[in-house]
């Protein structure tokens, strides 16, 4: 764990990670109970990336997520009841039940969208970055994607233009070592995503993505550069996808992580150990943080269940008027 951070920041990061963790564990249960619908991709194990990045952004900074984006949306400020209601297909969902798990949007908090097409979100972040600059602001745009997106052409097109135009965009790769069912080594000979972009002269760094403080520090550096107009960056966060590619994935393609090994990797436990050692966290606070998140998720589920399903037809919002 990297060097000390203020207790208030540490508590905020812990709180965000617990909210994502408990929320997603509940989503997994509700998916098995057929209360949450569709294709569900959980980010359990990767919470440190979303928390470390989004905690430093403003509402007017655009963030784009991928198919595994519940954590991105929550970390950017999306209210849990609306996210849960969306996953349940209810009318009070973030997107009125029209989007679903892979298409969460919370424009008011600058979460301009998750996308279900791997890599398809990357150029959108460039566009938001371009708009911010042309409209005279100092906003940045951030896009989260997995290591599986890097082998697509749209990624290379986007890195090229981001650097060519010196756009205030930060590309955050959550490298969990698996593209769907397949280890990175079977898809490419380039182990590090930060090496893929090396020829473009983009600022790049690879960090331990399960060390939320390391993510936060590295992101703080590239964020201030991008905001000041120094151009784009790529932050590769090495992390762990604890669950399958999707809920229900039997994961025959890999061995389960041993419990002791996971204890060492879990970004929440790691920050908690760090906080206790540094003296800004005690056991009572740990219990209260986890319980607070549980209570909040319980309430989100309760509110989502109360929300009705939308009524057909669903053709009203095809075009903006």
């Amino acid at each position, binding site marked *: 764990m990297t060097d000390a951070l203020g207790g208030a920041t540490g508590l905020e990061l812990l709180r965000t990670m617990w909210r994502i963790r408990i929320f997603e564990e509940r989503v997994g249960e509700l998916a098995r109970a057929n209360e949450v619908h569709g294709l569900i991709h959980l980010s359990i194990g990767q919470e440190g990336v979303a928390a470390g990045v989004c905690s430093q952004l403003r509402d007017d900074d*655009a963030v*784009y997520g991928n198919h595994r984006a519940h954590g991105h949306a929550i970390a950017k400020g999306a209210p849990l009841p609306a996210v849960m209601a969306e996953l349940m297909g209810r009318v009070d*969902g*973030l*997107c*009125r*039940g*029209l*989007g*679903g798990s892979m*298409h969460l*949007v*919370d*424009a*008011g908090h600058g979460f*301009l*969208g998750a*996308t*279900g*097409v791997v890599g*398809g*979100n*990357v*150029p*959108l*972040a*460039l*566009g*938001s*970055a*371009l*708009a*911010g600059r*042309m*409209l005279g602001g100092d906003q940045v*745009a951030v896009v989260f994607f997995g290591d599986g997106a890097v082998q697509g*052409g*749209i990624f290379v*097109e*986007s890195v*090229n*233009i981001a650097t*060519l135009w010196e756009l205030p965009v930060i590309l955050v790769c959550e490298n969990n070592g698996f593209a769907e069912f397949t280890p990175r080594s079977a898809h490419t000979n380039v182990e590090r995503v930060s090496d893929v972009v090396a020829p473009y002269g983009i600022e790049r760094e690879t960090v331990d993505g399960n060390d939320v403080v390391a993510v936060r520090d590295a992101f703080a550096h590239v964020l201030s550069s991008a905001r000041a107009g120094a151009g784009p960056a790529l932050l590769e966060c090495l992390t762990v996808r604890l669950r399958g590619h999707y809920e229900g994935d039997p994961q025959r393609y890999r061995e389960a992580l041993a419990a002791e090994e996971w204890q060492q990797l879990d970004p929440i436990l790691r920050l908690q150990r760090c906080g206790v050692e540094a003296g800004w966290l005690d056991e009572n606070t740990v219990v209260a943080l986890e319980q607070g998140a549980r209570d909040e998720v319980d309430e989100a589920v309760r509110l989502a269940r109360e929300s009705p399903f939308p009524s057909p037809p669903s053709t009203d*919002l*095809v*075009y*903006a*008027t």
Partner: protein
Amino acid sequence: MTETTYLGAITATLAGALRADDRVLVLGEDVVEGGPWGATAGLAEEFGEDRIRNTPISEAAICGIAIGAAQSGMRPIVEIMFVDFVTLALDQLVNQAAKAHFMSGGQLRVPMVVRTQGGAGQRGGAQHSQSLEAWLTHVPGLKVVMPSTPADAADLLAAAIADDNPVVFVENKTLYFRREEVDVHRESGAIGRARIVRPGRDVTVVALSRLVHDAVAAAGSLADQGVEIEVIDPRTLVPLDVDTILESVSRTHRLVVAHEAVEHGGFGAEIVARVQAAAFDELDAPIGRVGAPFAPIPFSPPLEDAYLPGPDEVRAAVLAAIAA
């Protein structure tokens, strides 16, 4: 009245929109230099290379950047140099741009225009000559505009730029240098309104883009034979002004649809289906279709000339409808 070309109308409309609204920007390959036909010629001199922005040959990224910029407050106009290259950007257009407003429950808007051009006849071969508009009309959330005249090109491009939805604006390369008198005091065309190009009592011919002119050309010789066709240009395929077509069919009781695209699966099939469903009893003959054969566009001049539908094919289809 003033005389202008189709291309000149486009350039002037782009300049007008750029002048009127700082949020408008143009993105595309070689747009600073004006592109292959000069559609954006001179714009960089007036508006600078920040707003007239050259891009690498990266159609997917260009479209994605425009979508993100549109979602964040700009009104981008993307130029995809040939409609054949829209294929490279289909994820962005189909999965991102078209669905963002809907999937976000109305939170996002994507006010962008994709200007592109299709059409054969210039020996461009099978990858630079296609008419692929039907694919785009199949995607809810996109609007598809296909003007055939300078006045419509100007009016509908202005309307597309003002629209809060993604609009694909399909030009035709063989029409670029057609020079026409344009009434500066005309009533502006709106997206979703067809135009009766030539009134007639015997057969309605709904034609798209270049085929509008071929239908008008056929109308002269048909008139010599005593057959008066009514030529309708839908101008926008999505949304489609089916009412104007139905009203015409209710007078002529015969219909031919004509486009340059491959007939099989072409947009004409949608028009045929809509008309037969709404006005089956009005029809005195099977609906005729004019389109290209189900084959890639050949290169060799005599082969390409034979492949392309034109006035002769329209005339034959009209006469078949009369004879039925």
